[in-house]
Every structure is written in C-alpha cells, then in structure tokens.
C-alpha cells in the first residue's frame, strides 16, 4: 500500500467534504482541488454534484463536495443526497473512505449537532475547523487537543481563504486514509425510550405483533416501512405511537444539543467582554435597518441590474462582431456551394454566436452573486425582501433570479440555485422568463416608434414601454402563487435563513464560480441550441432552387420593372419570396388563421415563428417579410413606414395601435427563446417542466393578443 503507483492503480480513495451550510466547505474544497473540478447533477435530481481531485504523496485522491446539511434526517432534496453520499447508497458513487467534516468554530453548538449524528454512521472521520481566525479576533480561543479528545478524531484548524494550514489538512487526510479513526460518542438512550418500549411491547403483542423489547425499541427509534404500514391499518395504535416517537425525537435532539453545549463550554475560552459588539453587529445596524437597509438594497440591485443590462453591452457587441466577421470569413471559403455556405454561416456560426452572446451577462451576474453570497449580504437582502415575495410561495431569495431576468432569463434561471428550497426554486424558475428581458426591447422600440409615438406622443410611448416591462412581473406573482398551490407538488420547507457573519469574498472562489457557471452553460445549453438552430435554419432555407429564383425575378420585373431597374429592390423581393415559400413560410401561411383572432396576418405569423428560437431575430425577419431585406434594425424608419402602410388584401390597414400593443403583449409573454428552455431543462433536470413553461407562456401570450384585438373590435 505504500507504493503510490500501486495504490492509484488498485483504488483511488474517495473523500467527502461534509458540513453545515455556510461552514466554509466550498472554500476548503476550492483550496484542496483548485480548478480540478467537475460540476454535474446527481442522477434523477436537481442537486449539483461537485467532484474534484488532488494529489497526495501516496497518489491521487478524489474529493466530493457534499451539499450542506443541518441534519441527517433529511428535509430537502440536497440533504437527502448528502445523506446518501455519506452512507454510500448514492448510485454511481462508492462509499467515501473518509469524511472530512468542515466545522465552523464560530457556530460550534449547531455544527456539533450534525457531528453527533454523523458519528453514529460509524465512518472514518477527520475535522477541518474553519473560522478560527475570526473567532480569535473576537477574543475567543478553541482548545484543539481538548476538542480532539471530545470528538475522538483528529482536528485540523484551517483558514481556507488564506490557504493557511491547507497543507496540514492534506497531510492529515493522508494520515487518516492510512490509519482511519472512527469517532466514538456515547449517548444515553432517552429515558422516554425505556418507558415507551415497555408500554408498546404490551400493546403490540395484544395487537398480534410478536416483537421482543429490543425490536420494539428499534421500531420506536427507526420504524421500518412495513411497521408503518401496519400502523396505518391499526388506528388505535397509530396516534399513541407517533406521539411517543415525537417525544423521543424531542428528547434526543435536546440530548445532542446538551452534549454540544457541554463540549463547547469545555473547549472555548473567551478573553473579551461577551457584550462587545462584533463588526457584523455594527454593519448590520445599517444594512438591515428599515430605512438605510432598504436604500442600500435598492442601490446594490440597481448596480447589479445596470451591470447586466448596460455594462455587458459592449462585450456582447464585441462577440456579435466577432461572429459576424467569422461568418464572413467562412462564407468566402464556401462561395462555391451556397447551401453549405448558408448552413455554416446562417445556421451554425449564427447559432453558436447567438448562444455565446449570453456569456458576458452570465459571468457578470455570477460574479455579483458570488460576491454577495461570499460576503454574507445575500442573506441580508433575502431577510429584507422575504415579506414581499414570501406570500405567493416564493421567498426572499427569489429577488436575484427575478431581477436578473429583466436583463436575461438565462442567468436568472441559473441563479435560482441560491434558493435551497426545491419548491420555491422551481416556482421561481417557471415565472422568471415572464420578466421582460433585453431581447424584447427591439420589438417594443420598433412598434412603439411606428404606432404609439407618432399618434399619442412621447409620454404615452414611455408609458407603454414601462407597462410592457411591468406586465410580466404583475402576472408572475399570481402565477407563482397558483403554481405553488396547484401544480408543484411537495411541501415547502420552513424558511430557515441563516445570517452568517460578514467577510471579504475570496477572489479565487468568485473566479471559480464564474468559470464553472460559464462552462456549464456553454456545454449543456450549447449543444441543444446549436442543434435547434440548424433545424430552424433548414426550415427557413429549403426548398430553394435556381428555377424558383428566376421565376421570382421575372415576377418582379413584370410588376415593377418598367419604372427603373433596382438591384436592391429585386434582391429584397427575392429574399421575401424565398422565405415565403420555405417550409417555415408555408407553415406560417397555413397556421395564419390561428392568429387571425389576434389580428395578425401571415407575415406577422411567420415573423413570430421565425422568432421562436430567439426572439431577437424578429426585427430582421420582419425586414425580410416586408421586402426590405434582413439588414434592418428597430430604429429603421423604412421598416416603420412599411409597417404603417401595410394592408390586408382588402385594403384595411394591417396594423393599428391596438394590434401593435397586442403584438407587444404577445412578445412580452411568449416563450420565444431556445436557450431559456435548454437552461430550464438543465436546471430542473426535466423536459416536462421546460415543455410546461413553453405551453403556459405561449398560451397566455396568444390569449393576451386575442383579447386585445377582440376589445379593439368591440370599441372601434
């Protein structure tokens, strides 16, 4: 076993980092493994699986960062997974050879509670004691040898963020892998157990269950599935039994805390006045103040929003330009074969570019989240906001995903993982894309510029823009409430929000968080988006032939030519006819009657269809469909003119301010973004939720547009 080659060949040891949330686990993990990490999902659930590896003198060690837990009696999905990993019953992961328990020295009692439960699992353990430095600054010292004696395992103090003692931790891991130590804690059985066991022993035998005293005891402590089923058909025993179990549980929790308090008293010495205000107290006097706290919160959120909305802009333009140039460059090589050229330029390069363009927003948002979370402010903001978001089944933490979604739903949905409760998290993910993202803005600008501003003035134009942004938020709240009540199953967890002491966020942790978020997005969302882009490209490209093009050109000459030869006009005309006769265009014509109740013709219908993969292409599609070519933007006066003058075949104007508002409402509510759907599928680990979201949003958008057109018909 001493030979490193031999050991790594036979078995790479697995260690698991276990601990309370906020104990500093991630920092320790990042220090141990650096960038050698793999981020994925545990099978079948949405819990993130973070694995890494590092080298010891004796060979490579694998390390899994187990989700934080408050108890081994799991309440959340995260905790269920954590318990399974610890006990070795998680599929695809062997039983860890060593549990490294990350123990927050500043929160000894509660951290020792979980330790006392872990000790009973009977696995080799080692304790990494964090936050010792901060405790020392507050005049509190921990007697390490005493603590080691109380716990029965080795204790290594680490200051993870400065990398202090991480080498000592590695050495200790090495030592404990060679010579494992299993903690031995002795708890007295709750006194209530003996009394209850006697009572139930009698009652069970009278009910025909032949349990001896120790079996009865076992059933009281941890009843089997079979036994619980038996109770269900024996109502006269069920209630007293459950009552007895509650009593036992209460006693055993109290017993463990009593032990934890005793250990804390024995190992902690305080040299300063306990009434002295800590730095966190001083900061919190302002940051959770009912006036200053809210002002500061609004300021921080404004900064976050501005950063995603505005500061990401130049980077996104840079990416856009780079992919444009790449497309041109690649296009020149493929001039000989137009189909291949269009596939590469309009399908693949445009598709990849359309996805990569979200990266700046994702990275900026996750930089902020890592800083806010690492510093401890995120929890304060959730505390301030909980009342506003809590009543509809969300909670205070939902403000980050919702606010971010006003810039872009993709980072917003990804950031919903700041919410530990699976139920509120899912509700937040499902309503986040209703927030009006920056990609909807061009549609609003185009239509407001063409139909609202000229007729009603700048005041109403501004109001309409605001109303479109407000609409999603207004609908999101009742929808979240309804989803929580009716659609999403499972029980909501109590809102147990811990407010950790403030600390400086660690640059390394922030950078790693950004790196892994970006990587996950590119890998998972990327493949789906590129595939779908190619499919949509094909639908809007084929069928295409030289003969058809010649036919369109002849058509154009017959209609307009005698006046003056116009190359650009001819090209735009052919472009429009090609799209009109493509599979997508034909489909648009076929389903145009469906959109007739909303007052949309086949051109608007086709533009809507083109925009399903990504709504921002709608302006370019409209340019093609209204014979201006694809090179138009939302400020284009030509396109505004065309829209204002467009008519139905019978000469009625195609669009009125009403239909313009209807179309804007459609875009505000519709789920037209493949990247969002791909992200939802990944984050919820379920295709069904992505499909559900697509259906409910698109359905609402359709109903909204129809409703507005029908009101128009009634009042005009």
């Amino acid at each position, binding site marked *: 076993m001493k030979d490193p080659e031999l050991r790594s060949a036979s078995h790479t040891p697995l260690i698991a980092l276990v601990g309370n949330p906020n104990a500093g686990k991630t920092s320790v993990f990042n220090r141990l493994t650096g960038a050698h990490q793999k981020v994925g999902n545990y099978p079948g659930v949405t819990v993130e699986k973070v694995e890494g590896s590092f080298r010891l003198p004796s060979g490579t060690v694998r390390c899994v960062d187990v989700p934080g837990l408050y108890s081994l009696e799991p309440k959340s999905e995260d905790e269920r997974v954590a318990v399974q990993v610890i006990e070795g019953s998680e599929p695809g992961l062997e039983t860890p050879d060593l549990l490294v328990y990350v123990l927050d020295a500043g929160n000894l009692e*509660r951290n020792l509670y979980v330790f006392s439960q872990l000790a009973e699992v009977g696995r080799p353990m080692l304790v990494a004691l964090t936050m010792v430095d901060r405790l020392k600054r507050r005049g509190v010292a921990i007697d390490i040898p005493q603590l080691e004696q109380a716990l029965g395992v080795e204790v290594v103090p680490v200051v993870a963020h400065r990398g202090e003692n991480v080498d000592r931790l590695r050495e200790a891991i090495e030592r404990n892998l060679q010579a494992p130590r299993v903690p031995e804690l002795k708890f007295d059985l709750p006194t209530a157990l003996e009394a209850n066991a006697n009572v139930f022993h009698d009652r069970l035998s009278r009910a025909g269950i032949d349990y001896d005293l120790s079996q009865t005891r076992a059933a009281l402590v941890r009843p089997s599935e079979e036994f619980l089923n038996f109770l269900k058909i024996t109502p006269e025993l069920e209630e007293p039994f459950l009552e007895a179990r*509650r009593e036992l549980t209460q006693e055993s929790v109290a017993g463990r805390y009593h032990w934890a308090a005793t250990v804390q008293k024995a190992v902690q010495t305080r040299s300063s006045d306990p009434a002295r205000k800590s730095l966190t107290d001083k900061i919190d006097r302002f940051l959770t103040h*009912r006036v200053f706290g809210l002002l500061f919160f609004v300021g921080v959120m404004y900064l976050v929003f501005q950063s995603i909305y505005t500061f990401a802009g130049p980077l996104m333009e840079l990416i856009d330009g780079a992919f444009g140039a790449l497309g041109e460059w690649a296009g020149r090589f493929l001039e000989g074969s137009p189909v291949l050229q269009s596939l590469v330029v309009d399908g693949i390069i445009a598709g990849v570019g359309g996805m990569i363009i979200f990266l700046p927003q994702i990275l900026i948002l996750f930089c902020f989240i890592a800083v806010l979370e690492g510093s401890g402010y995120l929890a304060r903001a959730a505390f301030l906001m909980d009342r506003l978001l809590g009543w509809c089944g969300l909670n205070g933490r939902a403000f980050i995903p919702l606010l971010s979604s006003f810039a872009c739903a993709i980072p917003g949905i990804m950031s919903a993982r700041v919410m530990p409760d699976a139920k509120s998290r899912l509700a937040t993910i499902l309503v986040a894309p209703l927030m009006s993202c920056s990609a909807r803005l061009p549609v609003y600008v185009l239509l407001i510029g063409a139909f609202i501003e000229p007729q009603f003035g700048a005041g109403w134009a501004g109001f309409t823009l605001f109303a479109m942004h407000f609409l999603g938020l207004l609908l999101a709240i009742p929808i979240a409430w309804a989803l929580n009540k009716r659609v999403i199953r499972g029980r909501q967890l109590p809102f*147990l929000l811990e407010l950790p002491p403030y600390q400086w966020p660690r640059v390394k942790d922030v950078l790693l968080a950004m790196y892994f978020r970006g990587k996950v997005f590119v890998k998972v969302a990327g493949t789906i988006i590129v595939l779908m882009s190619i499919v949509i490209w094909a639908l809007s490209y084929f069928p295409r032939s030289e003969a058809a093009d010649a036919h369109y050109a002849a058509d154009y000459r017959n209609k307009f030519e005698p006046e003056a030869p116009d190359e650009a006009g001819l090209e735009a005309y052919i472009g429009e006819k090609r799209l009109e006769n493509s599979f997508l265009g034909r489909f648009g014509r076929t389903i145009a009657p469906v959109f007739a109740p909303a007052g949309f013709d086949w051109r608007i219908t086709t533009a809507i269809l083109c925009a399903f993969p990504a709504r921002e292409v709608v302006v370019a599609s409209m340019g093609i469909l209204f014979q201006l070519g694809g090179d138009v933007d939302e400020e284009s006066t030509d396109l505004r003119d065309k829209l204002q003058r467009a008519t139905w075949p019978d000469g009625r104007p195609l669009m009125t301010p009403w239909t313009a508002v209807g179309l804007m409402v459609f875009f505000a509510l519709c789920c037209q973004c493949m990247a969002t759907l791909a992200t939802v599928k990944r984050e919820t680990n379920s295709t069904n939720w992505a499909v559900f979201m697509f259906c409910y949003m698109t359905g609402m958008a359709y109903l909204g547009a129809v409703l507005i057109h029908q009101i128009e018909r009634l009042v005009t």
Partner: protein
Amino acid sequence: MAAVAEFKPLSFSHLRQGMTVRIVRVDARCEDALRLQEMGLTAGTTFAVLKVAPFGDPIEIDVRGYRLCLRKRETSCFELEAVSA
C-alpha cells in the same frame, strides 16, 4: 414566587427588537417542529430578537451563538415567554 401567574405567553406580534425570549414548549405536532429543534430551537432555549424586518416579518434572532431568520409561521410552533424586554 407565583411562576404560573407570571407566565405571559408571547405571540409573534409582541416580539420587539432587543427582547430576550425563552422557548417554553415546542409543539411536536407542528410540521416544522423537528427541523426547528434541530436548528437549536429546543424547549428551554433562550434567544435574543436582533431585528424585525422592514415589512414586519421575518425576525432575526441570535440563538446558540448564530443568527437565524424566523417567519411568523414558524414561531407559531413555539410557546414563548419574555425573559427581559
């Protein structure tokens, strides 16, 4: 002396910043009772109310040396009494 007469049950709306409160009893039938106790809020524990959130709910408390947020809904699992105002 008359401990029973002195006992004044506290409801959530009575909790004010700066109060010290003792948990007299935990209602074990309350859905969240187990988790709340596992967070250290066992019968007999005292905690200090550090802050009431701007909109009246939740509250921030100091229990067993750490800071925790509690919503009104969760405090209904407890029977509380004021130790000092």
